């Protein structure tokens, strides 16, 4: 008897080589392989709402301010503040409109998404010690945009109010000859409380930092979970699987070989995503890049068993793909790849906790965004190892039986 281990490994590599040769000769497939992560990253990165996601809301502006004695200080001050806020955020695209009724009509037609009206008594009210009131016309059919508009204008008013208050207090103090209050410390009186946001790691983080690790984990693991049954059921259907089955080789080398090939494919995509994420979206890996790859491989390991079990059950390629789709979508959305798990209802959170992808994405995010090391992700690591080991223990006998039905 020869050593079974040696043959298993060399035959696995032969099968992996064969699979990869086939993959690299498939031009269209290769193009798709590269395009998929680009689409995924671009699409997910841009369509989901992030902090400054709403911009360029087109609004009409009606300035009816009559002013006082030829001075229109109130509305001018507002417009300067609005423009300076807008030049930073690009939130609004402002166009001039003639009247309130024209504004409403334009909103109805869909030409603009909202409007701002400065009433004729705006400056007068402020000068006469009353509140200056603005009218905002919103599109009731699009609450998100009107909310964004309101928050933009609120921010503008807050800035205006603070600036005005600072000015008034400094002037007042000067009139009273109070030297304790000056322009540098006046802010403490106007806005005594302030917030400074500080992350675990320095620097600004975006939504891409949140999704990039998740998408990487998902792509690599999915490629094994879907690629394995697809590849084997395809060979079964075409008949080439018989060619391997009549050779005096360990049945497991077929699975191991195919897994190696699919892992290579998945990692290639994972690396592409990483490169894209850092080049196009400024994602930066805080932790060890080796740990990132180790985690991806561990993710593959945790999914292999599941892939093999599905392979054993799927009689043909079509069934295999249908099972894959059914499992893939819930897993994509429940594993916290796109949305934080914390925003789901409790029962969904519990389901999420049963999926290995949740742990892989979590661990990867901790390493990539928070710069965590192995000690910080031991829970995730042990769950992934345990899940993978249990699934493989189930999968091996199931597969061996299925192959010689």
């Amino acid at each position: 008897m020869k050593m079974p281990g040696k043959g298993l490994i060399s035959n696995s590599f032969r099968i992996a080589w064969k699979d990869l040769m086939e993959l690299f000769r498939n031009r269209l497939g290769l193009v798709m392989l590269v395009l998929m992560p680009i689409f995924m990253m671009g699409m997910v990165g841009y369509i989901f709402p992030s902090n400054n996601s709403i911009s360029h809301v087109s609004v009409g502006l009606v300035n009816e301010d009559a002013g006082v004695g030829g001075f229109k200080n109130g509305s001018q001050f507002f417009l300067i503040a609005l423009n300076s806020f807008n030049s930073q955020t690009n939130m609004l695209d402002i166009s001039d409109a003639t009247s309130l009724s024209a504004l409403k009509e334009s909103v109805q037609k869909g030409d603009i998404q909202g409007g701002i009206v400065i009433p004729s008594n705006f400056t007068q009210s402020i000068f006469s010690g009353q509140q200056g009131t603005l009218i905002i016309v919103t599109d009731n059919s699009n609450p998100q945009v009107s909310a964004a508009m309101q928050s933009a204008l609120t921010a503008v008013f807050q800035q205006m109010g603070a600036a005005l208050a600072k000015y008034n207090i400094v002037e007042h103090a000067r009139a009273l000859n109070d030297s304790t209050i000056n322009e540098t410390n006046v802010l403490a009186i106007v806005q005594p409380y302030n917030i400074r946001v500080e992350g675990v790691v320095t620097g600004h983080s975006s939504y891409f930092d949140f999704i990039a690790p998740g998408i990487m984990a998902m792509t690599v693991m999915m490629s094994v979970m879907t690629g394995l049954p697809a590849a084997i059921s395809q060979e079964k259907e075409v008949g080439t699987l018989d060619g391997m089955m009549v050779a005096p080789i360990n049945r497991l080398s077929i699975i191991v070989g195919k897994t190696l090939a699919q892992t290579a494919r998945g990692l290639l995509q994972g690396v592409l995503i990483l490169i894209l994420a850092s080049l196009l979206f400024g994602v930066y890996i805080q932790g060890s890049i080796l740990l990132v790859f180790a985690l991806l491989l561990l993710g593959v390991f945790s999914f292999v068993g599941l892939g093999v079990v599905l392979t054993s059950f799927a009689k043909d390629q079509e069934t295999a793909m249908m099972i894959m789709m059914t499992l893939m979508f819930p897993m994509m959305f429940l594993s916290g790849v796109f949305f934080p798990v914390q925003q789901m209802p409790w029962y969904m959170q519990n389901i999420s906790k049963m999926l290995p992808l949740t742990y892989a994405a979590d661990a990867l995010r901790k390493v990539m965004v928070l710069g965590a090391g192995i000690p910080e992700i031991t829970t995730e690591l042990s769950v992934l190892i345990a899940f993978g080991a249990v699934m493989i223990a189930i999968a091996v006998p199931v597969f061996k039986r299925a192959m010689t039905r």
Partner: protein
Amino acid sequence: MIYIEGAVLSNESLIMVQNLTKAFGDFIAVDDITFDIKKGEIFGLLGPNGAGKSTTIRLLSTLTRPTKGVATIGGFDVVKQDNEVRKLIGIVSEKMIMYNRLTARENLWFFGNLFSMPRKELNDRIDELLELVQLTKWAKAQVGTFSTGMKQKMNIIRALLNMPQVLFLDEPTLGLDPQSTVEIREFIKKLNQEHNTTILITTHMMTEADLLCDRIGIIDHGKIVALDTSTNLKNSISGANTTILTLEIANLTPDLLATVRALECVETVSQENSSHLKIHAHGDAAFDSIIDAVRAKKANVVSIQNIQPTLEDVFLHITGREVRDTADQKIPLAEHRHGLVGASRGRGR
């Protein structure tokens, strides 16, 4: 070499099948079949589609486990010693076992490697096999670009990589053009004659079974309903050991006619026209004695037609039905009832 000579004693049955049964749920694909195949024999399994031919091959080639019964190849059990069996066999299944995106050589290299052949030996073997089927100049072309005939040749030499003692051929000429069909059949015969390879071939084509096989098992609904040489099968339904010949002789003379009539084996001779004779004879040597007698008289034989019951008649007689799949799209040509011009009486003449 992968041969395990010690396991096989010559003159003994290389393949032994006992009460082999395979059920898929309620459907019994192979129903309690028993037969054996001798070393160097070409054994044919003849039957309509769905009769259980392919399942039998899958059982013997370790691809499927039997529900009941035993089968051994070279003394190795197909279930318990499957890897030993695999070293002895090669299989050409109905489907092409070839990767379209790999070249001919890469395909053979991949499958050969799975038999852990030494590099040098495998390389030489691949060259030899490609040469054998005249595909050497296509070695570096992707198999996907090949014609069906070329693919089937690849499919067969792939099965020969490990120099198998037993070759399983599942409908090897199905869907091939007439020329490729002839080439493949010649190749199978050559393989059997030159390398003494034992061959189990399944077919639903009566002529193919007749042309190639030493013995034929007729299989229907999973059961082997008849098993013998082609001649014996046909004789079994004609009731006796009868040979019916029509001879076309250009210089037919009364003297010749009398000579033929006088032969011991000849029962009746009828002269149909100036050149045609129809002879009924009996016994194993009937054909040879008639030909010898005619040749001795310096007769100018234009044609000989051996009118025999065909295997189709045998199948019809045994099962009471025509071969079920005559309407099958895959069958390119209708079988000829009396098409055996040249009077083949088995191999080795």
